[in-house]
């Protein structure tokens, strides 16, 4: 069995490499760019200077939070494709609270992070509740709630909770005390990166070593057996979706409090969706997800340089990401997704 799993894992790595380098090269050739030049500028753009490494780690951080959230839901047998919306809500809560209530740093930073976790968690709790109490398919509800989240935050930030005038799609600027401190000068890298790594380690431990983690995995891997063993499936579904949303919400809060220093309705270029690929490539294991988010973070930050320097459209990165998701849709880990 382990040998079989190892073979499958090796095959999956092969599939990802083919998707990234094969399709990437083909697309570059279509754009009349030598793949060597294209990938060269991508790697150089991602790792060429300390500042570029820092930006790669910023993108890694932004992907790591939602990917960890998605993995928690997936391990419980629930497909949360609402990370994007949960991240938006978390970001909005952080931006609004941070700009609204000037507090000293030791209160302001916990406030924006916890505010983000609560807002994202609430957005995850809705499909969790619909699933646990009413049996509503969480895939469709999380998908629909993504759109509602974008519209709701746009409405709030331009309407009732506006902090800046003129229909601006931004909150006010966060005071210095509410901003997550930088790890490196001349970069956008903050201690949110460390927080993400710590969270990954904690989640790994929770999944592996705690009763809660065991129940979560049991509910995901063998729901019927878990139910017979007395695990409350409805409760685990609700808790897993709430936790999943809260983690994505913290991610949104760190983008706001660390990178942008304000909430903006365009804060995410689709991190919540790219994170699905990250979670799958990371085999839904928090530690491997760290590595996977570094890989996709590299594609995100290097893609900019690839477009600017080699003239390869950035869309190649998204194209490859989408194909990786398709290629990994057959993973064993998600074969047991609860469907009723």
């Amino acid at each position, binding site marked *: 069995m382990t040998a079989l799993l190892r073979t499958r894992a090796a095959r999956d790595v092969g599939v990802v490499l083919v998707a990234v380098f094969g399709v990437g090269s083909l697309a570059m050739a279509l754009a009349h760019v030598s793949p060597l030049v294209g990938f060269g500028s991508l790697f150089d753009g991602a790792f060429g200077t300390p500042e570029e490494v820092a930006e790669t780690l910023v993108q890694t951080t932004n992907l790591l939070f939602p990917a960890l959230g998605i993995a928690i839901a997936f391990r419980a047998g629930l497909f949360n494709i609402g990370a994007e919306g949960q991240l938006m809500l978390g970001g909005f809560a952080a931006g609004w609270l941070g700009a609204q209530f000037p507090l000293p740093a030791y209160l302001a930073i916990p406030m924006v992070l916890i505010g983000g976790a609560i807002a994202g968690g609430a957005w995850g709790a809705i499909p969790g509740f619909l699933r646990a109490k009413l049996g*509503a398919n969480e895939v469709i*509800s999380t998908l629909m709630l993504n759109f509602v989240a974008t*519209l*709701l935050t746009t*409405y709030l930030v331009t309407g009732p909770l506006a902090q800046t005038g003129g229909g601006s799609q931004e909150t006010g600027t966060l005071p210095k005390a509410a901003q997550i401190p930088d790890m490196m000068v001349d970069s956008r890298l903050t201690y949110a990166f460390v927080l993400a790594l710590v969270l990954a380690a904690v989640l790994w431990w929770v999944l592996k070593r705690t009763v809660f983690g065991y129940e979560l995995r049991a509910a995901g891997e063998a729901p019927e057996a878990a139910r017979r063993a007395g695990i409350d499936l409805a409760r685990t579904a609700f808790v897993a979706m709430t936790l999943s949303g809260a983690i994505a919400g913290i991610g949104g809060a760190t983008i706001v409090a660390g990178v942008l220093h304000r909430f903006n309705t365009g804060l995410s270029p689709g991190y919540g969706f790219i994170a699905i690929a990250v979670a799958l490539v990371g085999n839904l294991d928090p530690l491997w997800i760290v590595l996977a988010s570094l890989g996709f973070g590299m594609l995100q930050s290097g893609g900019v340089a690839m477009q600017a320097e080699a003239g390869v459209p950035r*869309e190649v990165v998204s194209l490859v990401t989408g194909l990786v998701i398709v290629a990994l849709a057959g993973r064993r880990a998600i074969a047991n997704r609860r469907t009723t």
Partner: protein
Amino acid sequence: MNGTALAIAALVMLTLVKATPLIYAALGGVLSERSGIVNIGLEGIMIAGAFASVVVSGATGNPVLGALAGVAAGALLAAVLAFVATRLAVDQIVAGTGLNIAALAGAGFGLVVVYGQPGASREVPALGATGSNVLIVLAFVAAAALQLALARTPWGLHVRACGEDPSAAESAGIDALRTRFWAVVAGGAIASLGGVYLSLAELDLYSDGMTAGRGFIALAAVIFGRWTPLGATGAALFFGFFAALQFTLQRAGVPSELLQALPYLAALVALAGFAGRVRAPAADGVPYVRS
């Protein structure tokens, strides 16, 4: 005609224009899901239809050829989903999500390769008013035909059987994998007409993100319409009506975000069972693996 009658006629026409792409995409979704394959990739299929039809219409100068190419592209993308969902028995939601991302990026990439610019294509020969009207009428014909075909033909029975219980269907001599495959491909062909309508009837070009989530609104219409062609068409008309009313209601003080959120909220309400019992096909989304 007096002013009111004119205003009503304009509203009806605008409703039809807004609803038509949704109807095509929703019909494609219904056909796919009744066979047991959840098609989250409707958005990507619309994008493929919209983009390919513009490229071919521009290259040949013939918008009808363009429309056919759009249908072919949509069917091809659906065939990818159908293949991985039936032969490889992968998770349909995950695969569909990936296809959407890839299709949007692929079209954005294609814009640069074909037109040498990001953002939008140049203007190409379009279907015009006649072509637009034909597509509107055809949407309703397709809805009625699909309703009849699903309910009354042996093929429709096979499709529904595969959506409810594929292994029972196979015991009865139906090839469930093949039936599902072709239902998804045919659904993709229908849904792609929604994209063709956007790019070659409503407009005469492709621009990045022009489908603007309509594939997901169509998914909402499938659910709100209880997985039947006529129900989904009704839901699409309902959503189209509010889209058409958007400017009027906005002037009356209704937040535009609320109106835009309506389809998604309606689907959530339907899913939660607040609007009566909603039941998806029993084997919808469940990969079928022969034992």
